[in-house]
């Protein structure tokens, strides 16, 4: 494999790399100064659109295209919400960007706000990142002092304030309208769409929600150019006009049963096997992988034989996973019970379901209870059918829920039962010899502190 010289992670390991001085010494803020001096908002939108940058938060929607959904000639205010709620299990790249190179993020935010004519940017930062909180605030203060934020930035006529807004440990605040509701001071129940945030978002004004890594990409595109960005990654399939390609460098988080867990920057499209073997030192303790999560737990599971799937926006979908998600790869070795994995997943989603819509609220709770029972040796084969049914029917994609948390909850269930059914059946028959065949309802377990 070609070694890739980190760009997004260029400040990692650099002493005081998080300071303004360090960032400027690496070329930072010059692109912003040039943009404010001589370009229009529409130019920046066009730059990002042609770069092919797709959102790094999980949905992979074309960033520049999303910006064009904002109404033209709106009197304002327009808001940029930066989604720093990073809570997808396995994911930690935003944390590293915010701790080690906050100015890269901030320059990206200022450029993006200039492009979208946002007057205020709120960084919705998860509670569990206190170091990022301090480093970001310090960087914001430095940026104000240097005249990159506030009124009439560098005499351009463009004004911007960036405020940090702290979350309180709820995963659903990473959903863009859940984030908006939380910022507005309410319970983070995602909104029904339409209207979409670009039309009616934060405080019912036009709003764009973008991920931290996406902001960093914007800064780098402004510095190194569209051609540079497009030279990295997987080009769009010329035979498929609807394929936007997978351009640019990506931060891949690697964790679980590998020798060297960490965040590694590589062009979009490396395979899971390459990531594990070349960056991660291989599966730990000399073991083999049983299953690998491709992009955060919501994306489901790949089997060992599927590890040559390219981790770009299109790859994981081809092997039945939900998508690339956050590109957080988690390795599960062959000595781990798949039942334990699925129990952990169901426990997470039952805890995090916001509870407003029936299929997710009850489906996540019901699936956890079934996994608890299966784990406790009181499972039935019929439970696998029920779990598969829940997996197949709950979600935004079938239309049964308001947001995609349910799809994220469903995919690990679907993939685990489809790809590892044998292991489930063995476990159930072995641990419940007298009851695995029962099809009538059975008594529930006494749940002690389930969530």
């Amino acid at each position, binding site marked *: 494999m070609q070694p890739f010289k980190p760009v997004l992670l260029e400040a990692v390991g650099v002493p005081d790399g998080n300071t303004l001085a360090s960032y400027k010494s690496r070329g930072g803020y010059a692109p912003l100064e040039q943009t404010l001096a001589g370009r229009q908002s529409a130019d920046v939108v066009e730059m990002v659109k042609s770069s092919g940058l797709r959102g790094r938060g999980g949905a992979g929607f074309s960033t520049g295209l999303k910006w064009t959904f904002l109404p033209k000639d709106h009197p304002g*205010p327009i808001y940029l919400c930066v989604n720093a709620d*990073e*809570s*997808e*299990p*396995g*994911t*930690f790249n*935003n*944390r590293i960007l915010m701790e080690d190179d906050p100015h890269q993020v901030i320059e990206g935010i200022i450029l993006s706000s200039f492009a979208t004519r946002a007057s*205020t940017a709120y960084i919705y930062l*998860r*509670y*569990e*990142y*206190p*170091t990022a*909180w*301090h480093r970001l605030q310090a960087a914001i203060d430095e940026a104000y002092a240097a005249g990159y934020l506030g009124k009439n930035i560098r005499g351009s006529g463009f004004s911007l*304030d960036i*405020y940090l*807004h*702290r*979350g*309180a*440990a*709820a*995963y659903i605040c990473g959903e863009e309208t859940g984030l908006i509701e*939380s*910022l*507005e*001071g*309410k*319970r*983070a129940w995602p909104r029904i769409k339409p209207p979409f945030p670009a039309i009616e978002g934060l*405080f019912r004004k036009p709003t764009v929600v973008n991920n931290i890594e996406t902001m960093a990409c914007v800064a780098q595109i402004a510095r190194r150019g569209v051609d540079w960005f497009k030279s990295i990654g997987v080009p769009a399939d010329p035979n498929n006009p609807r394929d936007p390609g997978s351009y640019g460098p990506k931060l891949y*988080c690697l*964790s*679980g*049963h590998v020798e060297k*867990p*960490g*965040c590694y920057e590589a062009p979009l499209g490396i395979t899971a096997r390459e990531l594990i073997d070349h960056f991660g030192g291989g599966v730990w303790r000399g073991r083999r992988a049983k299953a690998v*999560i491709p992009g955060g*737990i919501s994306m489901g599971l790949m089997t060992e034989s599927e590890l040559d799937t390219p981790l770009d926006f299109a790859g994981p979908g081809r092997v039945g996973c939900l998508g690339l998600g956050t590109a*957080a790869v*988690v390795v*599960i*070795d062959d000595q*781990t019970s798949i039942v*334990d*994995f699925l129990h*952990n*997943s169901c*426990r*997470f989603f039952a*805890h*995090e379901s*916001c509870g407003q819509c029936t299929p997710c609220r009850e489906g996540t709770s019901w699936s956890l209870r079934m996994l608890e029972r299966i784990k406790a040796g009181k499972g039935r084969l019929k439970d696998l059918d029920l779990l598969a049914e829940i997996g197949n029917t709950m979600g935004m994609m079938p239309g049964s829920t308001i947001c995609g948390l349910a799809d994220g909850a469903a995919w690990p269930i679907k993939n685990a039962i489809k790809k590892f059914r044998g292991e489930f059946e063995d476990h159930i028959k072995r641990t419940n010899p007298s009851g695995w065949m029962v099809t009538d309802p059975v008594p529930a377990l006494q749940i002690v*502190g389930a969530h």
Partner: protein
Amino acid sequence: MIAPKRILTEEMVARIEALAPRYPNRRALTLPAIHIVNAELRHVPLEAVAEIAGVLGLAPAEVQDTLTFYQFFHQEKPHGKVRAFVCRSVSCALRGGDQLLEQLCHKNGIEPYGTTPDGELTIEPAECLGACDFAPCILANDDLLKNMTPETAEAALRQPRAKAT
């Protein structure tokens, strides 16, 4: 009934009001206000919720609704001076996170979410702390404790530690 004595200090109210220009309405101050109180008191009692509602011009039920959604704020009594979140999501679970939580609770004689009788330590499960590169990990106030075992964690949690931001 709500106690007549003020829980929110002048300083807390001043810090809440200082944030007001950031938002176009008062309701958006709800979570920041709750955090300000929680950082000082290590819990947000019902009396404080009613006072926050008064400061923001909301009904107490509206503030409590938002607060309880996060399943994050203690309300009945303060949590420990050190609040240790032990991650139990998939990457940490694969490297012993569940056992770490169980053993830490056992060593300290408390149940998960409980506080030691001396008021020093609260141990709670947390979902993915975003530090899977150092699994299993614990967030203790502002400090990320990396690559923990039950032994190293017990020792680390007994270190003096600044209060959480």
